[in-house]
């Protein structure tokens, strides 16, 4: 069988850049494979996808060596318009991939531009809308869609012509856990039922590793590993721990083998070892405290913490029956009651469109409640979703003061253009801008701060948030990422349809569910409230010790 996509010694430099974005890349993908692209940010995943569909070099220019063939077509000889009929592509930001006004016309565009008649276009639109479950959105304006809905519509537009290859660059980055799982399930179905070849770049590997036939890991523009999911995990444990899934990390720390590619395999393996909590074994209590901060009930967890906050006001932020009702439209918030105490770290979770962003805007005073009251102990610093929106100058030092830059470790980049910074650095600069160098804000609110971030950058951000909480700031983070929520928050609040439907310790809320739960918690069935591999391993080691004793 001839490969549907092949890279042969491909090296590529972006214009004006001496470091290759792709460096001697060679591999072949067979029709019907679901292949996962792994790697840290800036290591070539997106460039590889753009080379596969011909945007590199036709659209971006630069120096290109080697050969890429898509369905037998050399991408040097055929432009993206021709290759687009074979490969549907979905890139990171769905907003820039929606070019018309309504969902129906968006899905129809590629079919119309390839000269299909009205009947074929209507059928194609209807079919892809039904397949993706977006038929209810067909007559909506694309401007009215949430991020998750935009993502699904952009995917629908890429799939409208039923291309045999689909290229996806972090398609779940804006999706809530439910929609993310649905999307991965859909890709698997496309792959199994239509034999669609899928090449998927993703940071949250735990979401899709079990569905992948094969994993290609990129490092510094080169293929560092190419093999099945199990061999990738073994390689990652040895060569690139930041790429490990939480489940694999849990097993590696506990000294268990083989490393699991998904929750199901992990649980089966633990059951085989007689280590699955709740499977006839005692559950040792685990203190999953990753953070120095208040307990969810506001009780101090340690004497040091109590001393730290003894003289601070009891409440940093209080929302009392806050409503946000649109004129001629629905209510986005419906009587939200929420209290944050100094030093508390709270993860605000919920599906796309639940009202998380609106709640944070109210907290920061950008919006006024239509009913209800908000009390603030001081300034509320809000970091919005896109850090690039804060940058209006040509140099980093013009955006904020030197002490503020020093506080986030960016003072050495003062002369750089903010737009040239990496994703993590941009996030830190935006944080410095909103927090400033004067009095520390009473509350730090962050709206989806980890979009497009790799695990290393997320860990750094979680550390920074914990540090600020220790300094007495209340931190509230709206996030779709349960792993990040578990790493930085002690309390979790679940929002649905503008209402708080659950509010409690993260160890309870992120341990017990299917969707809003970490992989470690799902593997261990929520035992002991363990959310992260480091916490889960204590549980397993206690069991292993017990086993040895017996």
């Amino acid at each position: 069988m001839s490969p549907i996509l092949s890279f042969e010694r491909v090296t590529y430099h972006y214009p004006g850049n001496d470091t290759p974005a792709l460096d001697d890349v060679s591999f072949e993908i067979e029709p019907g494979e679901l292949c996962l692209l792994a790697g840290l940010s800036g290591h070539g995943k997106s460039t590889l996808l753009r080379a596969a569909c011909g945007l590199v070099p036709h659209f971006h220019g630069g120096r290109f060596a080697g050969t890429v063939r898509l369905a037998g077509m050399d991408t040097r000889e055929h432009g993206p318009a021709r290759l687009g009929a074979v490969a549907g592509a979905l890139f990171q930001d769905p907003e820039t991939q929606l070019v018309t006004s309504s969902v129906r016309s968006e899905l129809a565009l590629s079919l119309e531009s390839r000269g299909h008649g009205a009947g074929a276009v209507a059928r194609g639109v209807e079919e892809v809308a039904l397949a993706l479950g977006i038929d209810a959105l067909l007559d909506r304006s694309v401007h009215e869609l949430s991020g998750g809905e935009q993502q699904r519509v952009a995917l629908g537009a890429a799939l409208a012509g039923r291309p045999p290859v689909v290229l996806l660059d972090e398609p779940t980055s804006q999706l809530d856990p439910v929609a993310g799982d649905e999307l991965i399930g859909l890709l698997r179905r496309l792959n199994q039922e239509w034999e669609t070849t899928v090449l998927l770049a993703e940071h949250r590997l735990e979401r899709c590793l079990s569905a992948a036939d094969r994993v290609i890991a990129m490092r510094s523009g080169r293929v560092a590993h190419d093999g099945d999911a199990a061999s990738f995990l073994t390689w990652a444990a040895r060569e690139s721990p930041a790429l490990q899934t939480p489940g694999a990390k849990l097993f590696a720390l506990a000294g268990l083998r083989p490393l699991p590619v998904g929750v199901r395999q992990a649980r089966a393996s633990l059951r085989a070892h007689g280590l699955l909590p709740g499977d006839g074994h005692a559950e040792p209590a685990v203190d999953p405290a990753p953070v120095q901060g208040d307990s969810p009930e506001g009780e101090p967890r340690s004497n040091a913490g109590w001393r730290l906050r003894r003289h601070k006001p009891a409440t940093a932020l209080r929302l009392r029956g806050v409503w946000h009702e649109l004129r001629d439209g629905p209510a986005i918030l419906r009587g939200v009651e929420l209290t944050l105490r100094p030093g508390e770290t709270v993860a605000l979770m919920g599906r796309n469109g639940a009202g998380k962003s609106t709640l944070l805007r109210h907290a920061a005073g950008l919006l006024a409640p239509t009913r209800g009251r908000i009390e603030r102990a001081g300034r509320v610093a809000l970091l919005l979703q896109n850090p690039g929106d804060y940058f209006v100058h040509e140099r980093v030092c013009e955006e904020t003061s030197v002490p503020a830059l020093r506080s986030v470790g960016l003072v050495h980049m003062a002369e750089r253009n903010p737009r040239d910074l990496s994703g993590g650095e941009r996030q830190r600069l935006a944080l410095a801008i909103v927090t400033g160098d004067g009095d520390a804000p009473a509350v730090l609110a962050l709206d989806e701060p980890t979009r497009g971030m790799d695990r290393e950058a997320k860990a750094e951000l979680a550390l920074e948030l914990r540090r600020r909480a220790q300094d007495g700031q209340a931190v509230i983070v709206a996030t779709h990422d349960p792993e990040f929520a578990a790493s930085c928050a002690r309390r979790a609040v679940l929002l649905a349809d503008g209402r708080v439907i659950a509010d409690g310790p993260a160890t309870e809320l992120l341990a017990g569910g299917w969707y809003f739960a970490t992989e470690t918690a799902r593997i261990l069935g929520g035992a002991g409230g363990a959310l992260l591999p480091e916490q889960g391993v204590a549980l397993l080691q206690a069991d292993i010790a017990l086993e040895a004793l017996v």
Partner: protein
Amino acid sequence: MFTGTQPFFYRRLSSPLHAARAGVGAVWALALTVAALVLFDPLVLLALTLAVLGAGFGARIGHPLARTLRTAAIVAVPIVAINVLVSRDGLTVFARLGDLGPFGQGDVTVEAVVYGTVIALKVTLLILITTLASLAVDPDELLRAFRRLSFRSALTASLSTRMIPLLAADSGRLAEAQRTRPGGAPTGARARVALLGAVVSGSLDRAMDVAATLELRGFAASRRPPHRSHPSRLWSRHDIAFACSAVAILALTVLGRFGGAASFQAYPLVHMPVTAGTLALCATLIVAILLPFCDRRGIDP
């Protein structure tokens, strides 16, 4: 999803203009544009502005149109100021600013102020009409209507009308981000220029991404659809009303320009006779523009 103020993009609303077919809506907006470009009488331009604002409220997009009017005022003021500084044609000097370097003697004349105001009024009117068309004429239907002629041109035109709400959304997002800085958003001309620069550079980045998407969707290889790919659609009462309104606006424009009902001269002395003909022209223009909005039957989406 965050939903704050009334959206600034096309959305099918219950209004006669939204109910009319996109081609007719576009022609009606084009007739308004011709009137705004051809007529110079300040009174007539004022009547046109009021009528366009009235049309906005008739189309249920009055609030975004009023917001646009505020933004247009920011553009209008410098136009008047620049004309006052560079114009040397007026005779009625009412202020002497002395030597202004490259601008020469700074004699401020009544004629320069009046002419600058007329140009500013025209620019404001054009901005309002473009906004009205962007918010009330379905760009996708327009694309379908014109794709038999040239798919690429129609798509480019459709995209360019979509850029207005996108730019508005971008600038709104950036302005909101600036409000979250400690001490609030920076004020002053320098801060506004910096914000404008960021919006422009952001829109260029966005244009690159949109261009890449269009490439992959086959824009470069775009083909004409087969003949009669859509069944013909009967003209509704709103189609007929707005088509008649467009014809009336064009006829009144010609009458005003060449019939002498809107004769206006700024230089060397302001000549702006307010005759019964001028007032009648203002009144009939307002009626011609607003009459189609009176029929509210069958306007629901």
